């Protein structure tokens, strides 16, 4: 970080360092930061006390507000992960992730955008069933993206009829495809129904951290699944896919021409040769009906 160019920048950096520092387990502002800096001294240096509150106590109000707001948003975005890990492990993950990856967006919608990549570097936070937890994170982020990503104009029937093996078919920006080791879709549907919708921005303060009901999922047997996470009539849906459908959509999303995408998807398929034309006709008709092909 460069030297402060102004008094304003200096104060904002110093206050942000205190406000964004993790709370203690008792949800108070720590007197000393992890790097050894004294919050007491910093507060006294920049904040005026009044007749009721010390400088430290005034700064602590903001430290708590910061974390309460982020906790609320993160918990609403990842209720499935919370159900798998349980409250204590989820809290530890949330605190560590948000400390390492503070928001870099004007929108809280993007708070969890780096979670999957961060967990690749910190698998110790995934609990005793890391693949189950990791699958849930991928599905929950795909859900967030499918919820409000762009919907482009549908490809017309005429345009679709004119495609050939060299054509590149574009798919809707809201469409995500996932290969998962656990059937986490049913679990997430249950958890989201219990807990309601995702967070939105407000400009009010919270008196305390909002505690959500957490249903701990003790066990879920592994069963490989493929899913399309998509949007239909502005609701998010999880559509089961066959391995061939998953392969075909993945190749199209990667920009492969249609002929190459089909070859890749069916290369190791047990589907008999004589059934492949009917299979392709059916899946393309379904996807066209769902509006997945776009201009």
């Amino acid at each position: 970080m460069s030297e402060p160019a102004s008094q304003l920048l200096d104060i904002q950096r110093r206050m942000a360092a205190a406000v964004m520092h993790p709370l203690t387990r008792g949800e108070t502002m720590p007197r000393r930061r992890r790097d050894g800096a004294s919050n007491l001294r910093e507060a006294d240096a920049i904040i005026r006390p009044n007749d009721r509150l010390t400088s430290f106590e005034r700064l602590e109000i903001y430290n708590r507000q910061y974390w309460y707001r982020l906790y609320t948003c993160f918990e609403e975005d990842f209720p499935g992960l919370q159900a798998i890990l349980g409250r204590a492990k989820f809290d530890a993950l949330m605190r560590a992730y948000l400390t390492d990856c503070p928001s870099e967006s004007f929108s809280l919608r993007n708070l969890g955008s780096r979670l999957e990549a961060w967990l690749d570097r910190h698998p110790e936070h995934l609990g005793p069933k890391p693949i189950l937890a990791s699958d849930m994170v991928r599905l929950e982020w795909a859900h967030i993206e499918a919820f409000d990503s762009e919907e482009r104009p549908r490809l017309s029937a005429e345009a679709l009829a004119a495609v050939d093996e060299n054509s590149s078919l574009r798919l809707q920006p809201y469409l995500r495809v996932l290969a998962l080791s656990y059937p986490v879709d049913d679990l997430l549907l249950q958890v989201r129904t219990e807990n309601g919708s995702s967070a939105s921005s407000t400009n009010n303060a919270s008196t305390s951290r909002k505690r959500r009901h957490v249903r701990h999922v003790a066990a879920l047997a592994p069963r490989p699944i493929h899913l399309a996470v998509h949007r239909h009539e502005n609701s998010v849906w999880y559509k089961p896919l066959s391995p061939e459908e998953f392969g075909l959509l993945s190749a199209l999303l990667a920009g492969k021409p249609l002929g190459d995408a089909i070859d890749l998807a069916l290369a190791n398929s047990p589907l008999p040769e004589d059934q492949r034309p009917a299979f392709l006709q059916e899946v393309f008709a379904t996807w066209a009906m769902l509006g997945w092909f776009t201009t």
Partner: protein
Amino acid sequence: MPANRFNGFSDYGVGIGLRIPHYQHILSRHPVVDWFEIISENYMVDGGRPLEVLDQILEQYKVVQHGVSMYFGSADPLSREHLKRLKHLVRRTHTPWLSDHLCWGSVDGRYTHDLLPMPYTWEAVEVTAQKIRQVQDFTEVPVVVENVSSYAEFHVSEMTEWEFLTEVVERADCGILLDVNNIYVSSKNHSFDPFTYVNSVPAHRVAQIHIAGHSKFEKYLLDTHDHPVLPAVWRLYARAIERCGPTATLLEWDDNIPTFDEVHAEALKATKFLKAAAEAGPNAATAAVQAAAKTLLEPAGAAR
């Protein structure tokens, strides 16, 4: 005065914040509401249900945009991506004015998502006013800035909050969203007279007023927006209307949100003040608004 260049010469009445728990009620029952205020950031997305609902609301209601993360007071430069998305939304809503807060909340590209208090310094005046001008120029719509509730003050401050607000809006040549609940909360937290604040702001720049509820703790007040408006805040509102005239007013209710009808009924209490001021005209507004306040704040029979 209420319809002025800072609110696009509009003459809005009493609105409420558009919140998710009320979507179904509004879209199915079409209640009569003067206008809705939306949190801009909740609709600065590329598609999906938020925009579908917004478009349905826009078909029937007037909508004004209120932002929570432009952070005029941050030393960081403005985000181009944020500005582009904001302007895109402005074109969709045709908001007659655009509001955000007189605060900071991001530094070195990291966002706190909170409304952090400004150090009231001349440097901060310059930085903040310049950024307001940039937003106004880019979005091509009048920008109004809202005073925030605060819980801390800085040693380096060189002026009062209302002096800071006045300096900023004069230099930016922008309007004010006067939040009388925030003034009340800050007055208790920092021990100043809230009426001094209301009496000091340039009334001709007030484009909109916010009212809301707050929570009282042993040593400070917190701006929670989870209660009805308290009598002390209504008194401050009455004084603001005396000074500014019948100004577009918005009730904020963001937590423990009751039914739509309860929120709307609370907001409509402001109508008494606005009507009194409008009917009395500028010369008699004071007496008329005070009379309206009396009927609202004193239970029947208590005035004797």
